[in-house]
């Protein structure tokens, strides 16, 4: 066929090419997400940015005024901002490695060929992830209670005085990490999917070459799983920088014990709802967004060195 005939074969009676028609349908299928993104993400983000340059207050009927950089100047001068950031980053330093590694280890165990009834164990480990979040925090608050919580009661059975998990500044972060392990089922399922995608020929070839389990893990499993690690790490960073609900429920969002739970997002919440300063809260939210973006971009930049995408090299 001539090129002209070929072109005509791809065109509809209305003069559109096949590519244009498929692109149109693609956009139509994307449109719900686009509309949702605009309505519930982008437009509110732009609105928040504008609010950060005004003196808007939730409970005031006064007209909103443009105040320039006043909120931003107050933000950078407020020591509570930096102390709450420090709290958040300190907690992240403990929680992130555990949130990335523990589900992977659990996925490794659950994908072992020696495990009897793997399906049952997968369901059991995933089930806590389905418990409504607030309910699970309330349950854990009671479990970690030094008076009636069963963790300390079990420890007491073995003659160990159970710690005051939620009121000791030295133990509050481990208590929160312990609480967070309740939800590892979600990440575990993602890792299981990743593990199942690793070609078995790689392991067979490694075994033929005499590689043991540990070497296979380090030289095959970990590199092949590196994109999943990146995914989990990025989501973990976003989650931990927005850490809020647990500490709002435990200790009533007071930041106790000793200010150790005065997380940055809790500070934004208070600025908005307790101090009714929406302008300042908007500036704080944008600062958090910029910090999260910067850290995420750093991770993606570093990922070029340690993430292996099969087929790209």
């Amino acid at each position: 066929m001539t090129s002209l005939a070929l072109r005509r074969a791809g065109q509809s009676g209305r003069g559109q090419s096949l590519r244009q028609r498929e692109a149109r349908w693609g956009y139509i299928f994307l449109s719900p997400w686009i509309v949702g993104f605009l309505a519930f993400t982008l437009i509110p983000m732009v609105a928040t940015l504008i609010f950060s340059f005004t003196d808007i207050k939730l409970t005031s009927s006064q007209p909103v005024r443009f105040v320039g950089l006043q909120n931003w100047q107050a933000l950078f001068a407020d020591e509570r901002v930096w102390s709450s950031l420090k709290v958040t980053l300190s907690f992240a330093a403990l929680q992130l490695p555990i949130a990335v590694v523990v589900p992977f280890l659990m996925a490794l165990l659950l994908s072992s060929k020696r495990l009897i009834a793997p399906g049952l164990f997968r369901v059991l480990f995933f089930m806590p992830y389905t418990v409504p979040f607030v309910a699970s925090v309330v349950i854990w608050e009671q479990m970690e209670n030094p008076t009636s919580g069963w963790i300390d009661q079990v420890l007491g059975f073995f003659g160990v005085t159970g710690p005051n998990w939620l009121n000791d500044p030295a133990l509050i972060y481990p208590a929160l990490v312990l609480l967070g392990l309740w939800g590892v089922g979600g990440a575990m399922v993602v890792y299981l999917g990743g593990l199942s995608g690793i070609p078995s020929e790689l392991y067979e070839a490694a075994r033929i070459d005499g590689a043991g389990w540990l070497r296979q893990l380090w030289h095959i499993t970990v590199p092949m799983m590196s994109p999943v690690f990146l995914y989990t790490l990025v989501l973990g960073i976003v989650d931990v920088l927005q850490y809020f609900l647990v500490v709002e429920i435990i200790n009533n969002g007071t930041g106790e014990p000793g200010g150790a739970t005065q997380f940055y997002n809790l500070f934004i919440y208070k600025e908005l709802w307790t101090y009714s300063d929406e302008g300042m809260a908007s500036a704080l939210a944008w600062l958090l967004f910029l910090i999260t973006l910067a850290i995420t971009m750093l991770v993606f930049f570093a990922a070029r060195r340690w993430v292996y995408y099969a087929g790209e090299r």
Partner: protein
Amino acid sequence: MRQPIRLGMLVVAAALTFGACSNSSTPTPAQAATPAPVATSAAGGPTAAPTSAATPVTYTGPKVSVTWFCCLGTGEDASQQAVEKQIVADFNSTHPNINLIFELTPYTGARDKLSTELASGNGPDIVGPVGVGGSEAFHGQWADLAPWITKYAYDLSEFDQSAIDFYKQGGEGQIGLPFAVYPSELYYQKAMFDEAGLNYPPSAYGQKYKMPDGSQVDWNYDTVRKVSMLLTIDKNGCDATQSCFDPKNIVQYGFEPQRDDLRGMGAYFGAGQLMGSDGKTAQIPADWSYGWKWIYNGIWTDHFIETNSVYQSTAFNGGGYTFNSGKVAMQENFMWNVCCITNAGRNWDLGALPANPNSGKVTATFNADTFRILKSSKKQEAAFVALTYLLGEGSQKLLNAYSGFPARKSLQAGFFTQLEQQTDPKTSKPVFPTKVNWQVAIDGIKYADVPNMETYMPAYNATLDRLQTSLTRWTATGGLNMDTEISSLLTDIQKIWDKAGS
């Protein structure tokens, strides 16, 4: 790809996307899920027929919907909700031009929710029952009822003038009408006193207390401390005065303060307020400092008051009022506490609150609830008609549900009789013990804290937040220097006020 399949996938994609939009990883301002007081009693209505407490007010305007927002104060208990819904149904059946809608939000999240609704322009019309504290959190946003009182010639003769004036604020007008008063009293478990061989607390103000050695002493917080230590028992049966006492294994506590609000905890030792006479200088009343230290020592030195961990544990009512767990010998609390007291058993009684040993004065801090109309309401006239129903024809049922002492004079005489006649619908047994000493509660009104501890102060919500931080810290952390802590609290409050005023 065929057309019908494309359209089908489009619908599925839309459903999934809009469903996923609500699962944003950005946290939403969620309400804190602190366990509410245990809903143990399904207090039925009084068996006596309610008397008509006011002349009904009739609305003849166009049909409108009026939203009644609850609960900046009491009202969220399951038994109370049943009454509130019945009130709404009764009102709607007799007022065809007004559709009253009941909107319930638990107390712990009610301020945030109301703030959101007001900010978005979707505020309710009526808010209540709401006390002084809840109202002051929204200072300046309440409607002046005077025009509607005048238009409908609403009869105010049923209320004491002082009660009416209580809701008249300079520059804002008559922003409320009297509804209920909740005086404070001392709740105590008779059996615990019997077991310890102790006399019951005084049944009237001004009486002395007879100690085990026969001496007659003043009923003040020094005496309460001694008695409470005798009533605090560990799992081995040792009390807090004995060398064998194990403070880590306490099964019964001698005393529980009313720990909702640090200001209230202090006010039981003497009336006062944080705001100085100039309206911008923070102060800590001396009686409050004394009271806070007394409580702190009671928790961490003498061990007759629960720590925060114990208070939050399920063994002691999981964050609800701990007297209602049946494991506390005495508690000072407001009258509304009787709404949810069933689990405390049926062998409790009321006694006189102790005096401050320094001043010799008794202070029975009180709450006062009413229903208010928001200034932002576009249906104030219809809301006023609904308000008068809640304060009038519906008030008796509501007062029973909230255990509020009526401000309306015609309802005062029979109030406690009706309260005692309430039965649990599940068991048909009386909710309250027989012959409760209600008189001491009424007498407590004479010792009300004036100024009230919940009166206005600058940056109200932010100051409350700071007070809550200290309350949590002091009840959760031993070994603190209370002078330093109180000084730090004062400094922080002043900073908050200075920032709010700048």
